[in-house]
């Protein structure tokens, strides 16, 4: 009924009919034809007004909006400079926010693409990687294969339970009959894995319980979609294909769907292989039958009718019950105490596991906050532009209001114009985000290949839409209401007053204060984060990271066993490398930086304390200390004379000496690693300077280095110190290794410094992006201050002219204009500093700082100076223009 349109002509016809009827009646009363017509029309009153009112009532909101949109587009086109600046500003703001959010979404927020992800729980937080072989004595994260089997069989609260090796193996394998080997990322999982997470095969089949019964008996593999696509071009004949790893031949039985990347965000394996094949995939590090070889994550699907509390109490009951079995029939008091403190915390696993998350959670939250500040600054800028324009459109709006336009109608129309700006900004912003997200993914991916998908999903789109609406509201509301608050009479009288509208000035000056405050926060953040990064990169590592190359060697994959042949090969490689010109030293090593394992140690005659830190263990070649340039400050270094037959020795770090041999010289003293036969009665022969081992941030920790000859295991890393051009050295290293054994796979010869710099990639990301944001913020504020001061000068041309005519010097005028701007900047800077110092107390911010406090005076001074310089520059340009005003011209201007 409301939309049944009645035409204007129909309405006119009705009015005409009325007039005729009335005229006829009047004629019957005795008037003449003409008089009757005339009187009837007079009685009717204003025909036009009636028609106006008819149109008014006919017009729907929809047609109004369409008209507003058309008008708005015309207004934007009429002022292209302003439109371009506003749209670009908004596009940068919205785009940067969308880009950071899509990364945050992929790393922190997105659910795993599996059935009912919210039923999945991880045992513990999933932060530990590797293996633990002590009885659990606190909140535990890694579990043994026997524990998994028993738990799965006895549990009542989970519909299924799966185990995943905490290490993804970078194995060397050959495909089909290929002669060469290539790197294949292998994830070992229990047969129940796919059933537990609820993923079916796209092609062939997935692993089942039948694939995980007898150790070594199930050489099958399931390929990931990404690998299938990359390596096989999606050839369906992959099913039945063979892959040879460490001389075991695996049959590919299926492919997973495209969206399933595993349960670890940012670390997608190429193939899944049953845990039963652990020894075949990882010959040097395994223990399927050992109760305390705890190396697995356990993920479980809670039954729908079981509460979380029930699940948790049942899990822990069973956990302790199984641990008591492991402790034996007569557990020691310490074992009992340990088990009492052992705990499994059920962690929601709907978003999967992720080492990326631990590394990038705080950085991403910090960046999200920074980029949101950018958006606020952008909004303030656009609001100021619109305020200035609204003032210059004062006449137009005054005219419209004085001929009867309704205020709400005008506000609506200004809103549509702002909405248009926002929409165009959002579309361009999405484009900016799309460009930026590739760069961002590359920045957080550990390898060369991007490991996460940031393709926009519903959450990202909703975020962009939300942020765009927020933007329009932020920049649009104040100017729209402001513009329509004019008094028509005074605005009509003069297009430009001698004195600017006071309230316009207040609002736009307030926006400048806000902008300066936000920009200062960003600048200070940028300075702090950059200096933290520099501090980290220049921190004393304890070794010389320059001119060292790392090479990866995988002897297990070409049939080496842990025996004399392996030792001979390593000796030969080290020896031959040392004689290559340009190579100063070479040594096999278990781990140079960023990994390792720990054990508790016992020193005879020293009481064991609960506060003793575990000792990091490293196994190295005889030349390691010389190659890494780690000074041995006491005693001797390791030597080729330390062999299987000789006395077991170790070189320990200063920190270990201080903690375990307090005060006295540790030389000649011994220590043991309790449960392990091979690691008893080890003599300390030297003390080395502390070196960073796990990360650059860590404090010095106890480390013990052992000669590789006395502890034969696979060592996958080789360090080489060189002088001269690394480009020539790299092929020489490869050739030398192949001269010992042409089949040995050598991969990834890379500089150690790169590895170390890569360990702070989160810091780097924050530092670089915050620097970009800081510059962007300063630039936007510069534009904003320039705009407001310049507008003020234009409006005050007359006043300034009078002042100069009365004798004000150019310098006076210059300083008057700059002085006014400076007051705003000072106020903004004060507000910004207070806010920045408050934000500096947040844990997320503190976690990104290194070697300085959030209130570091030098950084604050730098940021304030930069902000002041930018602000002065922005104010100086229009101020100089003010001094060029010719008093005569200015006065005549009125």
């Amino acid at each position: 009924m409301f939309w049944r349109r009645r035409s204007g002509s129909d309405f006119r016809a009705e009015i005409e009919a009325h007039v005729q009827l009335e005229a006829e009646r009047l004629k019957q009363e005795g008037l003449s034809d003409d008089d009757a017509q005339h009187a009837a029309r007079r009685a009717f009153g204003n025909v036009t007004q009636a028609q106006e009112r008819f149109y008014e009532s006919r017009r729907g909101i929809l047609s109004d909006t369409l008209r507003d949109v058309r008008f708005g587009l015309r207004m934007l086109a009429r002022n292209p400079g302003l439109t371009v600046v506003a749209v670009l500003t908004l596009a940068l703001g919205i785009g940067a926010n969308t880009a950071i959010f899509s990364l945050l979404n992929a790393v922190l927020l997105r659910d795993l693409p599996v059935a009912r992800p919210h039923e999945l729980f991880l045992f513990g937080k999933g932060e530990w990687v590797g293996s633990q072989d002590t009885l659990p004595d606190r909140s535990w994260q890694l579990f043994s294969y026997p524990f998994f089997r028993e738990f799965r069989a006895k549990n009542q609260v989970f519909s299924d339970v799966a185990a995943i090796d905490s290490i993804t193996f970078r194995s060397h394998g050959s495909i089909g009959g290929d002669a060469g080997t290539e790197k294949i990322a292998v994830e070992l999982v229990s047969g129940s894995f796919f059933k537990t997470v609820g993923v079916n095969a796209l092609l062939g089949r997935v692993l089942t319980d039948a694939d995980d019964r007898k150790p070594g008996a199930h050489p099958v593999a399931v390929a990931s979609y990404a690998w299938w696509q990359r390596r096989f071009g999606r050839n369906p004949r992959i099913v039945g294909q063979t892959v040879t790893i460490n001389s075991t031949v695996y049959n590919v039985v299926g492919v997973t769907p495209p969206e399933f990347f595993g349960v670890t965000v940012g670390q997608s394996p190429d193939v899944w292989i049953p845990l039963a094949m652990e020894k075949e995939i990882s010959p040097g590090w395994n223990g399927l039958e050992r109760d305390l070889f705890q190396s697995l994550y356990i993920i479980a699907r809670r039954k729908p009718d079981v509460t979380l509390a029930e699940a948790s109490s049942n899990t822990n009951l069973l956990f302790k019950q199984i641990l008591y079995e492991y402790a034996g029939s007569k557990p020691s008091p310490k074992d009992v105490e340990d088990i009492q403190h052992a705990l499994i915390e059920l962690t929601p696993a709907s978003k999967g596991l992720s080492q990326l998350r631990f590394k990038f959670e705080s950085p991403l939250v910090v960046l999200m906050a920074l980029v949101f500040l950018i958006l606020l600054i952008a909004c303030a800028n656009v609001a100021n532009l619109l305020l200035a324009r609204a003032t210059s459109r004062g006449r137009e709006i005054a005219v419209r209001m004085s001929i009867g336009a309704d205020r709400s109608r005008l506000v609506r129309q200004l809103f549509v114009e702002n909405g248009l700006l926002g929409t165009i900004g959002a579309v361009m912003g999405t484009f900016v985000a799309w460009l930026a997200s590739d760069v961002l993914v590359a920045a957080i991916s550990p390898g060369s290949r991007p490991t996460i998908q940031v393709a926009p999903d519903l959450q990202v789109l909703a975020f962009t839409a939300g942020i765009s609406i927020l933007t329009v509201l932020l920049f649009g509301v104040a100017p729209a209401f402001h513009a329509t608050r004019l008094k028509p009479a005074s605005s009509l009288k003069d297009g430009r007053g001698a004195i600017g509208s006071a309230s316009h000035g207040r609002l736009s000056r307030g926006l400048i204060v806000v902008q300066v405050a936000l920009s200062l926060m960003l600048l200070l953040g940028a300075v702090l984060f950059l200096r933290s990064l520099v501090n980290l990169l220049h921190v004393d590592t304890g070794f010389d990271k320059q001119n060292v190359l790392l090479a990866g060697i995988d002897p297990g994959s070409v049939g080496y066993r842990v025996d004399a042949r392996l030792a001979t090969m390593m000796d030969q490689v080290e020896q031959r490398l040392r004689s290559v010109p340009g190579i100063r030293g070479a040594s096999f090593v278990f781990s140079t930086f960023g990994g390792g394992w720990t054990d508790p140690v016992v020193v005879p005659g020293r009481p064991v304390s609960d506060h003793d830190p575990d000792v990091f263990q490293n196994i190295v070649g005889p030349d390691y200390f010389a190659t890494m340039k780690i000074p041995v400050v006491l005693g001797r270094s390791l030597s080729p004379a330390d062999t299987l037959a000789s006395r077991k020795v170790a070189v320990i770090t200063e920190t270990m000496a201080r903690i375990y041999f307090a005060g006295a010289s540790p030389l000649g003293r011994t220590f043991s690693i309790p449960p392990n036969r091979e690691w008893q009665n080890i003599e300390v022969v030297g003390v080395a300077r502390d070196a960073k081992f796990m990360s650059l941030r860590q404090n010095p920790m106890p480390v013990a280095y052992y000669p590789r000859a006395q502890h034969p295991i696979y060592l996958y890393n080789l360090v080489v110190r060189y002088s001269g051009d690394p480009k020539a050295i790299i092929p020489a290293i490869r050739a030398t290794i192949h001269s010992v054994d042409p089949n040995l796979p050598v991969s990834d010869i890379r500089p150690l410094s790169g590895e170390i710099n890569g360990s702070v990639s989160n810091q780097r990301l924050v530092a670089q992006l915050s620097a970009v944001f800081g510059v962007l913020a300063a630039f936007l504020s510069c534009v904003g201050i320039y705009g407001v001061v310049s507008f003020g000068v234009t409006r005050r041309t007359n006043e300034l002219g009078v002042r100069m005519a009365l004798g004000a010097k150019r310098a006076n005028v210059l300083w008057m204009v700059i002085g006014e701007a400076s007051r705003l900047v000072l106020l903004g800077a004060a507000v910004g500093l207070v806010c920045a110092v408050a934000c500096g107390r947040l844990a997320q911010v503190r976690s990104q700082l290194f070697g300085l406090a959030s209130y570091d005076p030098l950084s604050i001074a730098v940021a304030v100076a930069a902000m002041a310089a930018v602000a002065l520059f922005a104010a100086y340009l229009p101020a100089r223009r003010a001094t060029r005003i010719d008093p005569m011209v200015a006065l005549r201007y009125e």
Partner: protein
Amino acid sequence: MSTRDENERLVLLQGTLDLLILRTLIFGPQHGQGIARSIQQTSEDELLVEHGALYPALQRLEDKGWIAAEWGTSQNNRKARFYTLTNAGREQLAAETNKWRRLAAAIGRVIGAEEG
């Protein structure tokens, strides 16, 4: 033309025109001019209906669904738009009339009390 000076007539209170239109239509379909005339006559020329204001009001009532309109032919064979009261309109009229009576009575009491 009417015999009384226009200035002496009562100007309609806001909102009362709707009530009067609905009341007039209770006697059957009528066109705009007829409605205006009828209000003027039944009020014994006390009320002035500005014809120009009548039509937007009719349109408003039609939009609300209280009256329906159709083109037809008047007694003297002229084409005119005839308005009919709908059921919703009847209910509205009853409600409005009741409200108006209470208002008038209340005002009457206040004024009467002062006189007394």
